[in-house]
């Protein structure tokens, strides 16, 4: 049965990839990218990797599709074909890369082979020791937040670096520019959408908190929770308008949150050093190592959630605001059916 599902999903994946290559309508392409990620998430699920599937679904299918659309809102809806450049060399590079990748997989151990090195060297230690060392059921969470917690701190800093780039190059206005409203383009009139959004947004927010704090027991954690939390507010912004959404979290506060999250995570490490341990050695936080580990994991996951949620919102607000600012000039176009030529 698994094989049939895998074959179906992989076939869909291939169809999606080819469609993305052939599409010239970037709006449709962004949607296909979302679909591509969702199918990938499905594949991860069949591989028994729900944590990764969860992230892929939330980030790949969810937030990055929205960010792509926000970008398209300021640029153009249709791709301009590049002419006059030879496509032979790029094609050759891609073919060679693909061929080498296939060549490299020939000697890989079979998927799920219990004697493969990935199942016999480091992984068994995590599976056997996690309960004694950390005492939480979700081993993935103990690897990400504790055994390899420093990598996770690095990833949070990567997210922070991204928002530093967006704010440095584009910048978020403290007060949004007043522009002429164009009610036709907005979703204001759609009563159904408004009612549904009002119903759904609180549930999504609650779910985000669940994912955040239940990450030790079930798939999830700060990354996914942050993305889901941001998605709820972005949904609110899409339906009720940017100004209303900005009143939920004032930009002045929002702009400080990414750095605050990094400092919560990194500061936990400094705290453990002050208490006489190594960097991010949560054992120092309390008497019992298990309770200390769990406390440390909760602290750093809060840092992750704060940074990820605020970064996603900041990037969305910055992009959306620019799109709106440029509309009256006639540069750039946003809505469906807009003339982008």
């Amino acid at each position, binding site marked *: 049965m698994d094989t049939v599902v895998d074959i179906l999903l992989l076939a869909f994946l291939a169809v999606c990839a080819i469609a993305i290559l052939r599409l010239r309508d970037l709006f449709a392409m962004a949607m296909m990218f979302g679909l591509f990620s969702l199918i990938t998430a499905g594949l991860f699920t069949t591989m028994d990797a729900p944590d990764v599937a969860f992230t892929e679904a939330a980030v790949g299918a969810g937030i990055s599709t929205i960010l792509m659309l926000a970008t398209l809102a300021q640029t153009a809806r249709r791709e301009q074909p590049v002419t006059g450049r030879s496509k032979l060399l790029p094609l050759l590079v891609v073919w060679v890369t693909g061929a*080498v*990748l296939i*060549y*490299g*997989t*020939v*000697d*890989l*151990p079979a998927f799920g082979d219990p004697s*493969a*090195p*990935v*199942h*016999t*060297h*480091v*992984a068994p*230690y*995590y599976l056997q020791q996690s309960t004694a060392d950390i005492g939480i059921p979700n081993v993935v969470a103990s690897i990400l937040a*504790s*055994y*390899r*917690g*420093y*990598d996770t*701190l*690095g*990833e949070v*800093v*990567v997210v*922070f*670096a*991204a928002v*530093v*780039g967006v*704010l*440095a*190059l584009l*910048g978020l206005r403290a007060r949004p520019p007043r522009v002429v409203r164009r009610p036709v383009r907005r979703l204001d009139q759609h009563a159904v959408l408004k009612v549904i959004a009002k119903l759904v947004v609180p549930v999504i927010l609650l779910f985000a908190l669940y994912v955040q704090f239940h990450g030790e027991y079930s798939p999830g954690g700060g990354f996914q929770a942050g993305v889901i939390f941001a998605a709820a507010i972005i949904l609110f912004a899409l339906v009720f308008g940017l100004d209303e959404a900005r009143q939920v979290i004032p930009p002045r506060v929002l702009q*400080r949150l*990414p*750095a*605050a999250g*990094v*400092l919560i995570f*990194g*500061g936990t*490490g*400094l705290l453990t*050093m002050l208490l006489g*341990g*190594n*960097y*991010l*050695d*949560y*054992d120092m936080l309390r008497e019992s190592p298990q309770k200390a580990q769990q406390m440390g994991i909760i602290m750093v996951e809060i840092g992750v959630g704060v940074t990820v949620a605020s970064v996603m919102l900041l990037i969305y607000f910055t992009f959306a605001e620019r799109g709106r600012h440029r509309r009256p000039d006639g540069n750039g176009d946003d809505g469906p059916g807009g003339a982008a030529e």
Partner: protein
Amino acid sequence: MLPLIVVVPMLGAAVAALLPAGRLPWLWATAVSWFMLWAAAGLAAQAMDLGVLSYWMGGWAPPFGIEYRLDPANALLALLIALLAAVVLPYAGPSLASEVPERKTPYLYAALLLFLAGQMGISVTGDAFNVFVFLEISSLATYTLIGLGRDRRALTASFSYLIMGTVGATFFLIGVGLLYALTGTLNMADLAARIPAVAETRTVHTAFAFIVVGVCLKLALFPLHLWLPNAYTYAPSAVTALMAATATKVAIYVLVRFIYTVFGPAFAFGDMPTAHLLVPLAVIGLLSTSVVAIGQGDIKRMLAYSSVAQIGYMVLGIGMATALGLTAALLHVFNHALMKGALFLALGCIAYRLGTTQLAVFPGLGRRMPWTMAAFVAGGLSLIGVPLTVGFISKWHLVLAAIELGWWPIVAVIIVGSLLAIIYIWRVVEVAYLQPAEDPGRCEAPLALLVPTWILVGLNFWFGIDTRVTIGIAERAAAMLTVGLNGGAP
């Protein structure tokens, strides 16, 4: 102390982003860079005494947790990054104030500190995946910093580097992923121990290819260097100086670390045709980009091409696969950072006063900005490889290494490369000193810029005369890295 050298700039970046716009973020970043220099000096001394320093993140023993591992090879690099940061950051204040709007300062210095944290993180880690994480941190910060250049073309330069850099990083990640699939570990020392058992598989060969190509994209080895000239040309002056001095050097180090430590020279040069690939590319790159440098109208771009040529020397040393060749490569990593740092800082002084670095503004600059131009000439002499400068030391070692192998054509290439450097440096000197100025008014750069510039110029001569520290560390590092080559030098 070992984790703090990375953690302090990393968290320092978050603090910088919270500070009010103005001088404060700059002062903070400068303080952080001085802390890094102090820490790096102490750590390098310890690494030389003890051989290897190991630090377990989170208290978890490797290979289960992430290990920081400092030996003479990366101690030299850490010292280099910290030294350049501590000299360039004081300079960055006035220089960047003239190129980047004041309201952007908190994010500007946050990006600079993230860049330093990323570079330092790559240098001191002993974990292959951790390299990727910090590579991403420094790359994202670099794209931001390049994009902040005054010229709007900075944005396209940044974008093309983003594409190439992302391809490079992804290739590296694919390689690390394949290695993990075959060994079940990410720790470099553990990888080195477990790879020989699976070295004969196609997967390891593929992993090696992906890692080498990915890293070569980041270090701008010819013909993968096309992103570099625009990036260096349009980035703000202080950023170019810091990038030219450290970013490609860290990528060179990653190449050395993976070839010599993780895969081992026996595999890299025995099973794989690494030398047959690296040496010709280095030679072609060295000669062709030197020639291209001669024709450039923008001196910043000229030095960017010169950087690609200099990378050729370093890769040449790596491709020789001898202790002496590797010593020369590591020496050139350090020495080239000093000379290019000095040259780009001198150019930054010119950009500060005249707003451009086109050759057209150079007539009469020898009189108008005597100290700046003197620094440029001194840096140029070092670049050419005149005795008493650091440039001579590393080229001399490279020539010795080539002679030891009996590679006479390579000796000729190194000499021709130096002759080409004379031509492109002389072009500037001739215009600056021998052509009359249209506007003869003196416009020397302020002391705040001249002092850091001259500190780097001074270091070019200091380490050119007293070579005990640099050659000492480089020789120990090379001896340690080439153990796999039948006990060091033949």
